[in-house]
């Protein structure tokens, strides 16, 4: 008999803790709701709400300058806000771990989300960010673990794209009810 697994955000939280992450910058997304709550409840973690996603690129850079590992949570629409700042990440070889919940990708109801969502992997790749895709709930935490190793061990910028199919939001009503 197989033990019931905890929800994926709980497993990702444990993975971030095990990877030594002590700062988490975020712009909220419905798909990150649970993970953000876990981070905010953790007194050993600095959870920093951002006014725009590019702030998180600077935050993580400052954390690494100070000897601390950071992670950055956002939805795919926020990736576009980060592009120029990612130039610093690359030039300085700052480690960067981004967890991105996808919109505009699978069953999207909002047409305005589609262009950025579809462009997300290409935009990240163009700026030198390694892209890992997690298409099922089960593979998210192991993918984050591998991404953290590559980011902090290999001094790379790495993004984990969490597929919209995993989040599964189908309508405005459903999003509002979460």
């Amino acid at each position, binding site marked *: 008999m197989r033990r019931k697994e905890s929800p994926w955000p709980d497993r990702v939280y444990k993975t971030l803790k095990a990877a030594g992450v*002590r*700062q988490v910058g975020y712009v909220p997304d419905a798909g990150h709701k649970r993970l953000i709550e876990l981070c905010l409840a953790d007194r050993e973690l600095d959870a920093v709400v*951002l006014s725009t996603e590019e702030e998180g690129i600077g935050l993580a850079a400052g*954390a690494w300058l*100070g000897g601390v590992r950071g992670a950055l949570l956002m939805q795919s629409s926020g990736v576009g806000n980060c592009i120029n700042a990612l130039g*610093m990440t690359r030039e300085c070889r700052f480690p960067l771990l981004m967890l991105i919940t996808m919109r505009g990708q699978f069953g999207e109801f909002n047409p305005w989300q589609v262009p950025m969502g579809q462009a997300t992997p290409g935009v990240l790749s163009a700026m030198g960010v390694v892209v890992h895709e997690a298409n099922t709930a089960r593979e998210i935490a192991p993918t984050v673990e591998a991404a953290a190793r590559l980011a902090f061990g290999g001094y790379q910028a790495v993004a984990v794209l969490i597929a919209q199919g995993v989040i599964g939001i189908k309508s405005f009503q459903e999003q509002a009810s979460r």
Partner: protein
Amino acid sequence: MTTALRRRQVVEILLNERKGLLVVAGLGSTAWDITAAGDSPLSFPLWGAMGNAAMIGLGLALAQPARRVLVITGDGEMLMGLGSLATIGVQQPGNLSVVVVDNERYGETGMQPTHTASGVDLAKVALACGFGSARQIREPGELWTLRAAIHGAPGPHFAQVKVAAEKLPLVLPPREGGLLKARFRRALLGEEADLA
């Protein structure tokens, strides 16, 4: 009418005998200013990422709560990252100061006026965002109060220092990002930072 403050003298006063102060400088003139005051491995001068200086300071201040952190940047750079003042206000890092050297110009691109030339008051923005102290400075005497706050008093502090719009000789820091990062970490964290 008092004589306008001069940016290199302002930065020199703030950084003289800086001891363990950690400094992040926005791209352009403020990066040259901190270098004119004396390059240090504990300085991180930006050559890009416009709008992000204050956030790098926040990440550093949260990571190193026992150290004092100073962000020195220009008015154009601060305007591009205005939201970061709100983000810092929420976090309330007591060891962080943000000083805007405000010549009311985009100095590297032809001295075009910025919003502050039309009266946008960055100190009031910072105050409204929750900075413990936020002031506009025009008098030399006020710089010593600011210096004392940067080096010791509980923050976060913000100052918008009005300076003359002048073109000065470039004093350039190293520009390779990987080098700037590695030397900063080694100076702050020791040689074991190389193996982290």
